[in-house]
C-alpha cells in the first residue's frame, strides 16, 4: 500500500487545484510545500483571473483574499520623455462574475491550499522534495524529501514545483534550459494610503488598476508594470535574462529608472518600499514547454511553462489553476482505471489541448518572442510615441501635416524599414489571431 494515492509537489495555484480536484474524487492526497506556508515562495506581476475556479470553488469570490478588482486595464508605451496610455475602464469588472483581481500571493495561495485541506488533502509544509522515486520498471512511484525517513510513495506524482522544476528536469522531460526562454521579474511593493491610491488612480472602494508597460526598461528587453493593492502599490519590471547580463544593468537600477519616468513618477511618489521580491518567469510559451506526462508523473503550472506572456495578455495563475485541476482529475481517473502509465495519464494533455490552456498558447505561439524582439523593444516605443506626439502637437502657424506623412517620417527617424513595419504588423495580426 502506498503512502498516498497522489502526491502533489508544491502548494502554489497549480498544486492546490490539483489537490482539490484529486481529493474531491476521493483520493488520498498529500500536498507538499517547501515554504513555511503556501505562497511564501511566490510572487508575480500582478493580476489573477480566477474565473476558472467557478468549477472547483463555487462562490470563490466571497472568501478569496482579494486586494482589489481590476476595473482599469492600461497598456502604456514609454519613450524617454513621452507616454502613450491606452486605458480601458469597466466598473462591471468590479462585480460578479468579475474579471481580474490583485492579491498578495502568500494570502491567495494559502487560501487556495486551505481549500485543498478542506477537501481532504494532507498539507505538509516546510518540506523540500529532493527527487523522484522510481520502481524497478523505472516508473515514478513517489518522492524523496529532506525530512528524516522522508520518502513518500504514491500511485501518481503531480509536479507543480514551479518555474525551476527540478522534478521535470530530473525526469528528463525538459530539453536543456535556455536562458533565452526566461525573464526575471523584480518588484517593489510600495506603501501608500488607500486614500492616496484611490485619488491617484481614479478608483473607489475595492476597485483597482493594472498598468502594463512597453519601454521604460533602460534598454533591456522586457516590460514594466504597476498595479494597485488596497494600501500598497506594486511597481516592477520583467527582464529578458540573456539581455540583462549582456547590458550590464542591475535589476534594481532599472526599476529606479522606471520610477523616475515623468509618466510614472507621479504615480509612485512617496511610496516607501515595504517588500522587495524577485522571481523567474517561463516566458517563451509553447516553444519551451516540456513533455508533461510520464509513467506515474504529471507536470503542471509554471513547472510546465504554462505561463502566457503575450504582450497585451499576461497571465499565469489562471493557467496554473486550470492545468493543476486537469492534472488532479486525470490522475484520479487513471488510478480508477488501475493504469497510471503515461498512455493512460495522457488524458491530461488531451484536456489541456481542448481548453484555453494550450489553445491560447497555440494561437499566440509567435507573440512572446515578437514582443521581446529587439525591434519591438528598442524602436517601436519611440516610433509610436513620436507619431502621437506629432499628431496632437499644434505647431501653428504651420498647418497640420498629414498623418501618413507623420507616420512615414517618424518611422524613418526610429530606424524602421517599411518592409519591417509591414512584416511586424502581419506577424502581429496573424499572431494575435
Amino acid at each position, binding site marked *: 500500500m502506498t503512502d498516498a494515492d497522489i502526491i502533489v509537489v508544491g502548494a502554489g495555484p497549480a498544486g492546490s487545484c490539483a489537490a482539490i480536484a484529486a481529493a474531491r474524487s476521493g483520493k488520498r492526497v498529500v500536498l507538499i510545500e517547501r515554504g513555511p506556508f503556501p505562497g*511564501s*515562495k511566490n510572487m508575480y506581476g500582478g493580476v489573477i483571473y480566477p474565473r476558472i475556479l467557478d468549477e472547483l470553488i463555487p462562490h470563490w469570490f466571497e472568501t478569496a483574499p482579494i486586494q482589489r478588482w481590476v476595473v482599469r486595464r492600461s497598456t502604456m508605451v514609454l519613450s524617454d520623455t513621452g507616454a502613450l496610455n491606452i486605458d480601458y475602464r469597466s466598473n462591471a469588472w468590479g462585480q460578479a462574475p468579475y474579471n481580474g483581481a490583485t492579491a498578495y500571493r502568500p494570502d491567495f495561495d494559502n487560501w487556495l491550499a486551505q481549500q485543498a485541506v478542506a477537501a481532504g488533502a494532507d498539507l505538509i509544509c516546510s518540506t523540500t522534495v529532493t527527487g523522484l522515486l522510481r520502481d524497478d520498471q523505472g516508473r515514478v512511484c513517489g518522492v524523496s524529501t529532506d525530512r528524516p525517513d522522508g520518502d513518500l510513495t504514491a500511485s501518481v506524482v503531480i509536479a507543480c514545483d514551479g518555474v525551476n522544476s527540478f522534478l521535470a528536469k530530473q525526469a528528463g522531460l525538459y530539453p536543456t534550459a535556455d536562458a533565452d526562454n526566461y525573464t526575471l521579474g523584480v518588484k*517593489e511593493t510600495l506603501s501608500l494610503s488607500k486614500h492616496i491610491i484611490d485619488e491617484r488612480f481614479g478608483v473607489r472602494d475595492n476597485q483597482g488598476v493594472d498598468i502594463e508597460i512597453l519601454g521604460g526598461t533602460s534598454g533591456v528587453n522586457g516590460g514594466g508594470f504597476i498595479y494597485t493593492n488596497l494600501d500598497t502599490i*506594486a511597481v516592477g519590471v520583467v527582464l529578458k535574462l540573456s539581455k540583462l547580463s549582456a547590458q550590464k544593468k542591475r535589476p534594481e537600477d532599472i526599476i529606479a529608472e522606471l520610477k523616475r519616468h515623468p509618466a510614472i513618477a507621479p504615480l509612485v511618489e512617496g511610496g516607501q518600499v515595504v*517588500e522587495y*521580491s*524577485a522571481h523567474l518567469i517561463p516566458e517563451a510559451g509553447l516553444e519551451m514547454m516540456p513533455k508533461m506526462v510520464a509513467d506515474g508523473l504529471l507536470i503542471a503550472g509554471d513547472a510546465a511553462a504554462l505561463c502566457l506572456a503575450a504582450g497585451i495578455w499576461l497571465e499565469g495563475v489562471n493557467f496554473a489553476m486550470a492545468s493543476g485541476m486537469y492534472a488532479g482529475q486525470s490522475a484520479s481517473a487513471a488510478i480508477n482505471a488501475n493504469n497510471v502509465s503515461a498512455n493512460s495519464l495522457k488524458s491530461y494533455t488531451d484536456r489541456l489541448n481542448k481548453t484555453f490552456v494550450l489553445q491560447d498558447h497555440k494561437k499566440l505561439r509567435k507573440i512572446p518572442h515578437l514582443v521581446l524582439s529587439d525591434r519591438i523593444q528598442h524602436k517601436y516605443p519611440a516610433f509610436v510615441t513620436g507619431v502621437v506626439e506629432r499628431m496632437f502637437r499644434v505647431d501653428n502657424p504651420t498647418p497640420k501635416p498629414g498623418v501618413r506623412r507623420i507616420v512615414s517620417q517618424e518611422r524613418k527617424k526610429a530606424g524602421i524599414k517599411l518592409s519591417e513595419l509591414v512584416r511586424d504588423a502581419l506577424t502581429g495580426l496573424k499572431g494575435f489571431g
Partner: protein
Amino acid sequence: MTIWPDISFQDRIDTSEFRIHERAHITVNDDSCRGCTTRECVVACPANLFVPTSDGGILFNYENCYECGTCYLVCNKEGAITWTYPEGGFGIVFHRT
C-alpha cells in the same frame, strides 16, 4: 530632486524576510569563476550575491537569496554554480508580493 525616499541596496534587501539555514544551498566553484570573463551572475542576480574578489575569484553569499534561479541560467560555465533549494521552511519568505 528626490521625490521618493532613497533606499540603499541593503535596506532594500532587508525588506524581505530570509530564514537562514546553516547549509549553503548554492555553492560556487571558485576555480571555474577565475577563468570567466563575462560574469553574467554579478550583473543579473537580483540580490547582488556574487561579488568579484581582488584575486579574480567570486565570493558568494547564500543568505539573502530569493531562490529565483537566474544565476544558474545565465552562467555559461558548466559546473560553476551548484543550485539546490534550501531546507524546507528556510530561505526567502514573501508576505506582500
